Each structure stands twice: as C-alpha cells, then as structure tokens.
C-alpha cells in the first residue's frame, strides 16, 4: 500500500473510534451487488525503482531525434532555474488559491503573470490561464459573442490562414452551442490573406486573425483589424508570445487594436512534452473583463492595510454562478503559468527579443540550406516569422518518414490539411538549433531525395 501511512495498530484504533468492526463496514451503505469489484487486468504494484527503470527505457526510446517541427509547439531553451523553482513543493502541490492568505506566493506570481501578458500583448487585462492555445480560442470566441452587445448576430469569421487544428478545436467546443464558424471571405494569396481583394465581410460578432499565421506568414494585420472593426466585429488575435517580442502587439493593431488576444503559452518556458500540459493565455480590453472566462487575480489590502492578492471577479465563475458562468473552466494550467512567469522574468524584454530574432534567423538559414537542394523551394514569398512552408520534389509524407528513419524530424506535413500541399512541409528552426544541426538536416534531405530519385 504505497503512500498509505497506517499501521495495523492505527487501523484498529481508528475503527474502534468509529465503532466499526472492520474497514468493509464503512462501505455498508453501498448496495452489496455493486461491491466486491475485481481489479483483474490492472498490473501488480511496482516499486519506484522498478517503475523508474521502465520509464527510463521508454523515455530513451523516444529520445534523440533532431527536430525541425513547429506548427504550434516550439522547442526553446528553458533556463534551468525555471523548473527547479516551478517544481518546488509549495508551487507544485498547492491547490487553486481559494484561501488567499495561505496562497500569497501563487497569487502574487499570477498577478505578475497578468502584468507580463498585458505587456506582451498590449492589452488591459489578462486572466490566469486557460487549457491551451486552441481551447483558449474557443473561449475567446464565446467571450466575444457575449461581449459584443452591439452585434445583432453571432456570426464568427475565421481567417483561412488560421492553424487548422485550432479551427477544429474551436468548432468542437463552440459547435456544442450551435455556433458555426465561417471562413473569412478574403482570398489566401502567397500564404496570407490578400486584404486588398477582400469582400465586405458583412456583420459579424467576431473575426479571428492569426499573426503569424499557420504558415508562419505575417498578415497585413492593421488593414485586417480595421476591416473587421468596420464590420462591427470584435477582433480576436491568435498570436505566438515569443513573436510578440518583435511583432506589433495586438493592442496596436489597426486604428483601435485587437479586442481579445489569445494563444498558446508553451513557447514561454514550457517543455514540448508531447503536446501538454501547456497553457492558453487570454487578454482583453478592460471593458470586457466581466466577460472573461477563467480565474483573475486582483490586488487588494488586508485588515492592516497591507498589500495582498486574491482571486477576484469570481461571480463570473462556475463555482459561484453555476449555469450562468462565463465558462465551465475550473482547474486551469497554474503550474505552467508559474514556469512562464519565471521564464519571462529571466528573459526580460531584451532576452525575449533576442530569442525571437535568433529563431527567425535560424529558420531563414535553414530555408536557405534546404532550398539549395534541387527541387526544394519556398511555397510562399513575403514576410514570415520563424516558420516557413517548403515544397519538395516528392510527397511530403514519404520524405518525412525517410528522414525520421534517420533520426530527423523534418517538419510538419502540410498535406495533412490540404491535398494541394501534399508535397509541402512546414519547417521551423528555433534558437536551440545549431548550424551543424541544420547542415545535418540539409545533407540528409539531399541524400533522401536522391535515394527517392528526385
């Protein structure tokens, strides 16, 4: 019975205090026919030592590849301090800070996080996290519909260049309330929205704009934002937080700035970890704060007038408002936000800018190297950030498989979402990639393509 401290004497004394003969009595209210469950098929218990051996073998099996995939999750250097601090028991094993006085550590940190995120995005307020970037978009859409009191419609228009998985997730979630997402009627040219050829969007509650977009391309974001606002829509920005160290913050987009900003927080100190836990961030203008989902931390004072922090605006939340809450979210991704806050404090504005610039520079260099290979070429021109689509002379899936067999994860298969791109991959080289790594990839790609007769 790992982790159970009871000795036989303890059990006996406790049952006596209860007045129960044996532990089974304690379950006597449960109908007999439901009890006596068999756990056959569940393996026998192992010691930590045995599990450690198993897990080390399994982790080692998945390790060692050289990774050039981005497509929503990015390999960055994570300072050692980040997780050495984040896994401290007091952060790691605390609950949601319901008793504010006993949770000032987490609460102050979250307040600092909120400040950092508003700083990055140029918005007024931030919540304390949602599950991940994609589900945060779903929440942002629901929020926009609630918040846009002027709009007489709940139409939501989504840029055709949004990450297709984000769209799928958003559809799965908002679809349950019979909200359908429409594609924004602007042609995609060169991997980005051609705002010059946009039709009038018609009235909408919200428009979803990614920057950079799925292909790594940068949108003409000012014009798009203004166009959306002209349609009476709120603008929901979907952004990469690392990119924001360089790119114009959503708060400055167009004439009035975006209204709601969301995205995936993973690049900020969160390990790739097969896709999670990450965290979704959500920022907005002050006016919409009461429509936000998720926890929000406020600064206040204690009985002696001393500064302190506490959960606030809880009347938006399910534990108070139940069926009228802004969302059903309860547990969020607190520990990830702890890591991200420490990461951002360590990097600071200049550090984060350098990371972004090096990522971008590395991806440019990688594309240069790969495009020196016969038949490999960029799919799009025009500005991009830290990720780029390349066309191959052979089907992407086949090439990627061969690369993987040689220990290189060469990119994301764009054919997955678009048959016309079955020979395209999306590549990314962050700041952890070296020139040597890129040369290795290029050399291997050349060989693989030759072997495939390209």
């Amino acid at each position, binding site marked *: 019975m790992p982790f159970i401290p009871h000795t036989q004497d303890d059990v006996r004394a*406790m049952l006596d205090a209860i007045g129960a003969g044996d532990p089974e009595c304690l379950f006597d209210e449960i109908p007999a026919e439901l009890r006596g469950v068999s756990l056959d098929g569940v393996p026998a218990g192992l010691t930590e030592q045995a599990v*450690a051996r198993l897990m080390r073998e399994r982790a080692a099996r998945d390790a060692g590849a050289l990774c050039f995939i981005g497509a929503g999750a990015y*390999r960055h250097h994570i300072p050692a301090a980040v997780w050495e601090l984040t896994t401290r028991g007091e952060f790691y094993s605390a609950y949601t800070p319901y008793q504010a006085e006993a949770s000032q550590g987490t609460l*102050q940190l979250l307040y600092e996080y909120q400040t950092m995120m508003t700083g990055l995005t140029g918005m007024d307020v931030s919540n304390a996290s949602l599950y991940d970037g994609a*589900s945060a978009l779903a929440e942002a859409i629901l929020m926009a519909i609630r918040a846009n009191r002027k709009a007489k419609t709940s139409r939501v228009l989504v840029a055709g260049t949004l990450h297709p998985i984000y769209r799928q997730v958003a559809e799965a979630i908002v679809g349950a309330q019979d909200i359908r997402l429409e594609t924004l009627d602007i042609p995609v040219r060169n991997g980005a929205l051609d705002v010059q050829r946009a039709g009038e969007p018609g009235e909408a509650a919200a428009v979803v704009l990614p920057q950079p977009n799925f292909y790594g391309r940068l949108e003409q974001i000012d014009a798009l934002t203004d166009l959306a606002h002209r349609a009476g829509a709120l603008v929901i920005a979907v952004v990469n937080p690392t990119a924001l160290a360089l790119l114009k913050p959503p708060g400055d987009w167009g004439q009035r700035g975006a209204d709601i900003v969301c995205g995936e927080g993973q690049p900020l100190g969160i390990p*790739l*970890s097969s896709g999670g836990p990450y965290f979704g961030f959500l920022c907005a203008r002050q006016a919409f704060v009461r429509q936000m989902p998720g926890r929000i931390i406020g600064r206040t004072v204690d009985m002696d007038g001393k500064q302190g922090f506490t959960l606030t605006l809880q009347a938006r939340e399910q534990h108070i408002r139940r069926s009228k809450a802004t969302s059903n979210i309860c547990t969020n991704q607190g520990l*990830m936000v702890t890591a991200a806050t420490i990461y951002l404090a360590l990097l600071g504005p200049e550090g984060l800018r*350098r990371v972004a610039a090096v990522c971008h520079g590395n991806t440019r260099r990688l594309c240069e190297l790969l495009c020196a290979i016969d038949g490999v070429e960029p799919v799009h021109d025009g500005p991009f950030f830290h990720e780029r689509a390349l066309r191959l002379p052979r089907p992407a899936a086949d090439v990627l498989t061969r690369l993987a067999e040689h220990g290189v994860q060469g990119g994301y298969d764009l054919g997955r979402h678009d048959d016309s791109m079955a020979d395209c991959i999306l590549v990314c080289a962050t700041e952890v990639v070296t020139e040597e790594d890129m040369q290795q990839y290029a050399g291997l790609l050349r060989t693989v393509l030759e072997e495939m007769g390209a």
Partner: protein
Amino acid sequence: MRDDPLIFDQSQPGRRALAQAPLHAPAVDDIPDELLRREPPGLPEVSELQVVRHYTRLSQKNFSIDTQFYPLGSCTMKYNPRGSNALAMLPGFLDRHPWAPELHSQGVMACLYELQEILARVTGMAGVSLTPMAGAQGEFAGVAMIRAYHEARGDRARTEILVPDAAHGTNPATAVMCGYTVHEIPTGADGDVDLEALRQALGPQTAGIMLTNPSTLGVFERRITEMARLVHEAGGLLYYDGANLNAILGKVRPGDMGFDVIHMNLHKTFSTPHGGGGPGSGAIGVGERLLPYMPVPVVAKEADSYRWLTEADLPRSIGRLSAFMGNIGVVLRAYVYARMLGREGMARVAEFATLNANYLMHRLRDAGFQVWFRDRRASHEFIISLKREQKELGVSAMDFAKRLLDYGFHAPTTYFPLLVPECLLIEPTETETQEELDGFVEAMVSIREEAARDPDYVRGAPYTLPVRRLDEVRAAKRLDLKWTPPGAGDGETEA
C-alpha cells in the same frame, strides 16, 4: 519584516539575466517595419539571482501538501509522489514534439495505452480517452458525447440535462456549454437525491443526468441502480462526475452502477499535483454506446506497436478538445502513480480514504461539532456545519477556516456544497496519518474555545501568515489586475 515587492518593482532598465538569452541576435531586416513593435514589451528587467530569490521566497508563502495538511473537500489533496514528477520529466518525454512521428513515440504511447486500459478496468467502462485537460473539460467531452449520441439517433427533442442541486458548479456550467438547459433536482434530508423529483423531471426532453456518487455531500447515493434504470427508461444517459474517484477506487465501479460516461480527475485520484491551480487531466471513460464518439486522439495497440486513432478512425468523434493530445505530462504522472499502486494498492485507496474520513468525522462529532449527515457513513469526505457556533459565538465557518491557517492546517472547503449552512467540507485523504487528523481535531476544539473567550480574536485571523485577512470586496470593486509603472496611475479601475 521584509516584504516581497513585485518583480516589476525590482526591475532596472538594462538589467538582465545574461546567461539566459542568446549572446547576439541577427538583425530582423526582412520583416516590414509596420509589422514590428515600436516599444519593447513591458517585462521586468532583473538578474538571475533576483528571479531565483523572488520566486523562491514567493513559493514559501504558499500552503501546499508538501508543507501542510490540506483537507480541502472535493479536491483530494493527497501526497503527490516525487517519483511521478521525476519520471514524467525525463528528457525523452519532455523533448518529444507533439507532431513527432509514431516511430519516435512508442515509449510514451505505451504508457498512454496502458493507462487507458487501467482506467477502463477500474471504472468498468469500455473505452477511455485521455485528452480532456481537466475535470470540466472531461465533463464537456462527456456531455458532448451524450448530445452526439442523441443527435446520431435523430433524437433532437432532448434539450435538458438534470443536475442535483448539490452538484459541483462545473456540472451545470458544462451542460450549458453543451447547449443544454439545466434542470436542478433537489436533495432529500438524508443526502440522497429526491427520487420523486427525479421521476417527475424525467421526460422526452431529458438528454441525461450528471451525478457524483458519492455526491459532493460526501454520502453514497444508495438508490443509484434504480435511478439509472429510471433515466435509461426515459431515454436519457447517465454521466458520472468522477472528479473524486478516491471515494470508490477499487471498491465500486461506475460502469457497474449503470453510468454511460464518466470523467476522472487524474489530478485528484491519481495524485498528480494541482500546481496551484492546474494543470489537470480529465480522462473520460465510456460505455459501449458512446465508444464511437470519444474525443480524439486515442492510442490503439496493433500487434506490437501503438498508433493514434484520429478522426479517420473515429469519424463520429466529438472531435478534438486540445491542439495536441491533452496534458500528456500529467497523464504520465498518473501512469507512474497507477503502476506504483498496482492492483493491490488501488484497492486500498478508497478503503483508507474512507477510514480517515469516517475517523475524523467521528472524532469531530465526539468533540461536539455538528456532522451534517450524522447517521450516514462518510465517504472520502464529510460535512460539518458551524451554524451553531455562528449563532452562539458569532464565529463563522470562514472564521474557523482562517484561524485554522494559523494552526498550520489548510482550511477545508468552505460554504460548499451551497445547501449546507456554515459548512466545512472535509477530505482528509488516505495519505495522512492518524496523528495529523488528531492534530486537526485539537485545533478545531481549540479554536472553538478561543471563540468562546474572544470571538473578535478569531474573527481577526489569520495572524501568522504573510497577510491578515484580505479585503475581497475591495478587490472586486476597485479592480487592480496588473502592475503599472509608478506615475502611471495606481492601476485601479473603479468598477
């Protein structure tokens, strides 16, 4: 004496943690100016030592399982094994990209697959998906599946979800997020659902019912089989809120009770850490009927290798709830825990969680506190009401809660479930010792004595924490949600 100023207050222009950023950065000359930001982002500029010291110090201001008994009801704050943390953080797992090919993913997929199997066994369900990222998202997945099921049968009249009034707030909130209206079912005086009210509520509009059993009142719904029959006869499905599976793990299986779908909070029952708010993992289990609707991806085993089942394999799936595959790092921790416990260990979880709860309940009752359902067995948790103390001594449940902090105990859940006045919902969990529980009883008795002597003193608690009692009303009225540079106003917004 020393406070911990905000990290922003410790910032100086130009200061940096120099080992942490690239030494040089190339010019970004290919991105047009109008797409670039003009001002650097408002992040603090501090040294590495400042960061380490600041966040180490902040951490010390938290209560946590690793430092205090934390009997927060409905939250299952039990020991989070350090082994789970260390093994889930092996570099091979941390560095795996979510889009890495299956060829490079067999290690992690083996863990996921085996956990799916284990969870199916312990819940008595036919299939498990690990993608929901917390309990509430598990609920969403479950109710969305119920909806998909009815829709697939063309049964569009079912617009209502039944929820007992004692239910956790996420239940009604989820039903609404799934496009349903909520119909509340009252609870009887004995803590069980009012069966007559249920009968009357059921009808062709009933999509299903969301139940926790044992309920959030800490007692086992004894007529569950009958309820299941009634709901099924009405054409509805049964959702099991298994956030707190600790009450029954290894003892009873929701599948056997007649439930069609269940979510589990791996961050409670399977002892992954709560991290000061998350992340969690709200794995769901389904009966045969709902198998086709499970959220993707799910891991399948074919011969000796594992592969992802996606929309292509499960075309009727409710789809994806996260960009990738859910909170795999959390799932790995749960897997390690499940393997350490094993069959025998798992069977003991509910047994000892229940033993601790009943012991503590009896000790508090014997000490003169009002146990709410005094003739019922406690499950893994139980409720006491401080209505009498409130009336006679003028000291509320919240005052007890705050004063407990001074005694070095985290407070139980306060004022939930909403049905019970001045209540504390107390969940000791199986990993605490008898001595710890005894210490808690002593503290409660001692606080009551303090209250009898000097109620103001108790109402002024806590005294030994970094702050005294905080003004939550002010927090909500004069919103101050972020730091602003000195001179830029006080950052507060009058609400």
